């Protein structure tokens, strides 16, 4: 599902080039539940951005669903993000002026699904994460755990191949963290969606099937 071969990534800092990813090789099969760990500066955010087609890389090969992801136009990248990837962020990144249902429906808007239909589908997904009653509420009226569940519903609605979660439990307490992890596991188990979680919490990493550890731009295990 996700294949990285010899990925290099540099950042230009003034006149110097910062070598952030130093030739990563990594394969994640369909249906895996994987966590990526590493201290800050290890390159895990960069890796996540490359996996999410938010950022380009300098050399190597990245195949997502057997499609090479290299030097895509913005429009093409937007298309693949919409089709293949569901994002879950630490700070949820919901739009505050839209209610929960509209937030969940947003990816379908960019697939040009008619309004009524996408709101109907959004309600189904909200129901799956147990928030059907909260459909008309604005994110500001919800707790952190609820917001993250809305964000997960939004990530799921486009039926992605891969879910990329960036510190999804970082802003949550232990109990809600567990609830959120349960949802990830359930999604992974029942629908076979590949889930990649970036975290620095060992409790979270332990619940995944495989841990990929990054240090100084290299995979150490």
């Amino acid at each position, binding site marked *: 599902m996700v294949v990285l071969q010899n990925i290099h990534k540099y950042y230009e800092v003034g006149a110097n080039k910062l070598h952030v990813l130093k030739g990563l090789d990594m394969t994640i099969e369909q249906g895996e539940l994987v966590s990526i760990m590493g201290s800050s500066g290890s390159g895990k955010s960069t890796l996540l*951005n490359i996996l*999410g087609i*938010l*950022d380009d890389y300098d050399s190597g090969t990245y195949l997502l669903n057997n499609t090479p992801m290299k030097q895509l136009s*913005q*429009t093409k990248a*937007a*298309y693949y*993000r*919409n*089709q293949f990837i569901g*994002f879950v*962020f*630490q*700070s949820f*990144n*919901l*739009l505050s*002026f839209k209610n929960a249902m509209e937030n969940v429906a*947003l*990816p379908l*808007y*960019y*697939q040009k699904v008619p*309004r009524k239909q996408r709101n109907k589908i959004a309600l189904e997904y909200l129901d799956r994460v147990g928030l059907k009653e909260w459909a008309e509420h604005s994110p500001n009226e919800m707790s952190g755990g609820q917001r993250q569940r809305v964000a997960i519903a*939004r990530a799921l609605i*486009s039926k992605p191949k891969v879910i990329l979660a960036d510190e999804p439990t970082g802003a949550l307490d232990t109990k809600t963290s567990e609830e959120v992890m349960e949802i990830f596991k359930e999604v992974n188990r029942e629908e076979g969606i590949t889930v990649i979680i970036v975290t620095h919490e060992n409790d979270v990493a332990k619940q995944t099937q495989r841990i990929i550890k990054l240090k100084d731009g290299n995979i150490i295990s």
Partner: protein
Amino acid sequence: MFDLDKWSEILSTIRKHKLRTALTAFGVFWGIFMLIVLLGSGKGFENGVVNGFDIARNAVFLWSQRTSEPYMGLKPGRFIRFTTDDEKAIRENVPEVDVVAPRNSLEGTFSVVRGTKNASFQVFGDYPDFFRVKPMSMVAGRFINDIDIKERRKVAIIGTEVQKTLFKDDENPIGEYIKIKGIAFKVVGIFKTAGRGEDIRQDAQTIFLPHAAMIQAFNQGNRIYWFAFTPKEGVPAKVIEDKIKVLLAQRHKVAPNDLKAFGSANVEEEFKRVQGLFLGIAGFSWLVSIGTIIAGIVGVSNIMLIIVKERTKEIGIRKALGATPFSIISLIIQESIVITSFAGYIGLLCGIGLMEFIGYMMRKYEVQMDFFAPPEVNLTVAVSAVIFLVFTGALAGLVPAAKAASVNPVVALKDE
């Protein structure tokens, strides 16, 4: 492009920043408002002046003066007299001329008498064609006709003031006689002109007699005091003015370079000058208004830039969820168009409203000004202003939209 989501988003951002949007929109509003008011008043001014032209717009008047150059053994300072032969010569030699109306007037002090009433008026001897040089409407009866000229009938066409002075309100002047310098003329018509102010007062105190009757009754021989001409359709008045001057110079042995022998007034040239002036005024109005609108547009563009900056995170989220650059650009441009068009439209309505109100009040209270008619808003101007607005709105959104499209989601989504 026009779906409910975008509209609801545009409305929600506008609603969130009411004051800021209003202040921005005011720039555009004011620009359009000024444009409409300036152009409308300009048009009113123009109409006021143009309506003041109470003679045919292509008329040429020509009169004789003293020569200023010696020529063919003749001394300067000689007074030129036009005669009926000149009239014939003009008709024969200048085919471009349409109306040739010789005119005489009655000189000296005299009064027009009817019974016990008398007053002094100006009296002209005219041809039927003069009707085409000076537009007038007949209140009663008729103007001079060809038979009047042929039979030298002693008839008179009088102005409304003449009627008021010499006749009682319930009297019908038609068929009655008035005495001019002791000679009786039968009133056959009452006329009214379309001029304004002083002109119309003078016209109302005028009496027209058939030219032939006048020269016979008052011993003017075959003299013609001055001419009124109009050119045939499509011929500039200047052409006949020049041709006739050359012809008359030859006939009266006037040096070709003698500019003082003939006096003339060319209404067409005058009218052109006036129109040029109004073209200039309209151009100036556009310049001022477009300047104001551009200032407004820059304001809108500025605000949109701030909005884009504020919404960087939102745009980043949208991009992560699969928003294409085009969808982001169209969102920003549409918002810009909405603000400009709405503000401009309100400006348009207020401008037109004000113009209509002034026009309404002027008509209601019958305000008559020499140089100002009720203002007018040209529909073409209004429509092109609206199109211009939508266009400039898009233009104002262009830079902010490009900035929005270039938002890097990685940077935008970084947790602070």
